[in-house]
């Protein structure tokens, strides 16, 4: 049996510049369209649903502040992913590094007690979270740089272990991280000095600005510093790096450690912000994985992560509110997120390749709508 046609990918000689921003935009719309089909099939109005989503995600006080609050975390996990991806290091274990950030941050917040002022305490908690995230990726980074072991597999496996670790520290009676005063398993609250106040009646914390500053700083590092220069050389041509005496192994380890630290930082931001303790439900939220989508949407461009992080957060907040404000199932929001990732990655193919449909039996080739 033969299929009468075939889709052929052919590398473009040159990428038209307009495709660079049209494609990500189009992938969001394509995902929305895809979601609309599902909504129609299940008997909901796409227009009504999307209007609600937009209102709840962006166009109301609670909506926009919740969106920015969520984006605080997703910008961090997004840069974490993009920073490693741009050097072709596929750290997909940001999720696990985030859990460790939660644990590391909670440890500092509990262990150091109420002795230090908030101004010192909060940075210390954030730092401990970042260090814990970095520590969690150290082994994958080391074996990747020495032996070339796939970091995709190792970071992913460690995520499962990190999830067990979260459960362990909360569900084990007498655990340091467990609230000793309740029989119901709950995280122990960190010291007051390790908790920030949210803005007014919102759920937005000052950590949002920390995320913005870090995004800006890393962008600068990549564009302007020697370290960024090395990253650019290595990711483009490893042989040129060798020729120039750039130590690719060391840079690989550092890039992965920084990537892990950023995901850890995202976890610690939850500690000093909304959670104040280890919240075991974190393992159902997938903030680390969402960072991969945010990075893909921004095509690993650190300058665009803030935009894609906020956009994606808004879709998610709006999607989650659907169930509260209407009876639309929450899964529609989750499905949209997945669809966006798929379309963003698929869209990349349009940017880089000419896509043709070729009939296998006669020689004529037809151009697929690009």
């Amino acid at each position, binding site marked *: 049996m033969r299929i009468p046609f075939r889709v052929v990918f052919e590398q473009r000689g040159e990428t038209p510049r307009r495709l660079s921003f049209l494609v990500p935009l189009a992938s969001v719309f394509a995902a929305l369209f895809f979601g609309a089909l599902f909504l129609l099939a299940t008997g909901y109005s796409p227009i009504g649903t999307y209007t609600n989503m937009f209102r709840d995600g962006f166009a109301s006080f609670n909506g926009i502040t919740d969106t920015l609050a969520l984006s605080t975390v997703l910008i961090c996990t997004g840069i974490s992913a993009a920073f490693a991806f741009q050097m072709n290091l596929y750290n997909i274990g940001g999720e696990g590094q985030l859990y460790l950030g939660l644990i590391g941050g909670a440890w500092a917040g509990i262990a150091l007690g109420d002795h230090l002022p908030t101004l010192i305490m909060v940075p210390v908690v954030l730092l401990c979270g970042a260090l814990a995230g970095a520590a969690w990726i150290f082994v994958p980074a080391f074996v990747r740089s020495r032996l070339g072991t796939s970091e995709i597999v190792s970071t992913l496996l460690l995520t499962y272990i990190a999830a067990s670790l979260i459960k362990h520290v909360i569900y084990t009676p007498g655990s340091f991280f467990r609230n000793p005063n309740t029989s119901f398993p709950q995280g122990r609250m960190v010291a007051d000095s390790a908790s920030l106040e949210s803005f007014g009646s919102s759920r937005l914390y000052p950590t949002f600005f920390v995320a913005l500053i870090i995004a800006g700083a890393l962008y600068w590092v990549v564009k302007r510093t020697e370290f960024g220069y090395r990253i650019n050389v290595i990711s483009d041509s490893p042989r040129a790096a060798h020729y*120039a005496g750039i130590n690719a192994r060391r840079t690989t380890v550092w890039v992965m450690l920084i990537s892990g630290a950023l995901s850890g930082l995202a976890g610690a931001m939850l500690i000093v912000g909304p959670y104040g303790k280890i919240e075991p439900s974190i393992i159902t939220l997938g903030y680390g994985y969402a960072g991969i989508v945010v990075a893909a949407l921004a095509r690993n461009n650190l300058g665009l992560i803030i935009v894609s992080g906020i956009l994606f957060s808004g879709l998610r907040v709006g999607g989650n509110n659907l169930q509260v404000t209407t009876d639309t199932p929450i899964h529609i929001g989750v499905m949209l997120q997945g669809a966006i990732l798929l379309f963003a990655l698929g869209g990349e193919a349009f940017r880089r390749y000419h896509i043709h449909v070729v009939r296998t039996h006669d020689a004529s080739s037809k151009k697929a709508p690009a």
Partner: protein
Amino acid sequence: MSNTSHEVAQGPHHNSGAASTALSAHSIDKKFPGVLANDSVDFDVRAGEVHTLLGENGAGKSTLAAVLCGLYQPDAGYLMRNGKRINLSSPRAGLQHGIAMVHQHFRLVERFTVSENVILGSRDLPFKLNRREINEKVAAVAESYGLPIDPDATVGDLSVGQRQRVEIVKALYQGAEILLLDEPTAVLVPSEVEKLFENVHAMTAAGKSIVFISHKLGEVVEISDRVTVLRNGRVTGHVSGRGTTDTKELARLMVGRDIELNAQRATHAIGHEVLQIRNLSLSIDDVAVLTDISFNVHAGEMVGVAGVAGNGQRELADTIAGLISPTSGSVGISGAMTTDCGPVQAREVGLAYVPEDRLGMGLVPSMSILDNLLLTRDRKLVVDRVSVRPEASRLIEQFEIKANGPDHLARKLSGGNAQKVLLARELSGGRSATKLLVVCSPTRGLDVGAIETVRRLLNDARSAGQAILLISEDLDEVLSLSDRVLVLYRGSVVHETPGETAQLSQVGAAMAGLAAEGRS
């Protein structure tokens, strides 16, 4: 020297009078940001002829070839194939019309084997590949065109010359009727060029057409039925008829003035030893690549290393540059032992190195000219691009690099201009004043004007007291520039002779492994 004797294969030349136009381009415009790479270009190639595109670096030859094969779409103008208008939306469409291009920069997957690369992109491959069958087919195609190659070799392990061969085999395998060869001979040694030309004659005799691009005027005179000269994207001259022109005239047509390539070997004082190589041996995966090499290069001396590609030249250069640690023996640069020190240390004691491979090793394709200039320099913690910018502009001017400025990306440069960027960086000193210059095939891909400039710069560097190791497959270049010539064969120095009295026949014989007992 243009008339290198070479037997014409397969009988007399094809019926030139009655041949029909196989492919033509009409008023082609192709713009890139800041340049009009093709400016209403008319071009045609007939069945059974070799039509050469000639022009300075950045004149628009590769761009025109890319339009002819469907890689680029022209901004204006159109193509006709056998009298019918065609629209090529991609190289695949070009291939369906029997048009294939062998690119100046290789487009091979380094991790794949030769046959995997050759069949890559072929239509109608079965789901399950029969490796042995494919290998045999690839080897047969390669063999029948006189380009023997091991189908199972990994492309990443091949020398540049061998990779070029894979590219040619690939185009032939895909059944090209019109073959666009963009500087195919730049990486071939004379004997290989002869073979290629025999094959070109065989193909034209069979009615196929060749569009040929080369900067080597001798070759152009020898192989072309017609020549079209491009300059700044415009057609500025035609020569038709085999043997009706000579290299001098072509050079004049191209650059508008006379070119003197016979660099004089200035008499000058030779100083102390700068490069000292002692009993250098190198094995890679237990295969001996270099065997017991010892020689010196003195200040103010140019030593040429001749040899057929793949006899250890690349490894020798990489070892001197500190990129490879030798198995035994030592390398010293101006008194310092640099054997296992790495490239940065070697540069700090005065090394400059132009590697054989420009894009991907000597240059980072996705980075700008400016950033590429910084590649082998001392960069500060915060890269200071501002203070390097004027120097970048100056070098662009001095080397006549056709670019929009220091921010032009390396991969968007024409082949010759990329080579100029590499030379500009390495000849202009880096971490410290250059004492030893190791250059591999420095003039490959350069037009005659640029060759003249580069040879002058090399001579200037020598007069300024730098020690120069010139490694090149271009025997003429080695013989005409070097004070001393070494011949590398299978990783050993098999012949050594002063440049002035070097005999082409002797050096050639040594390169082929026919050296009389050892070295003098």
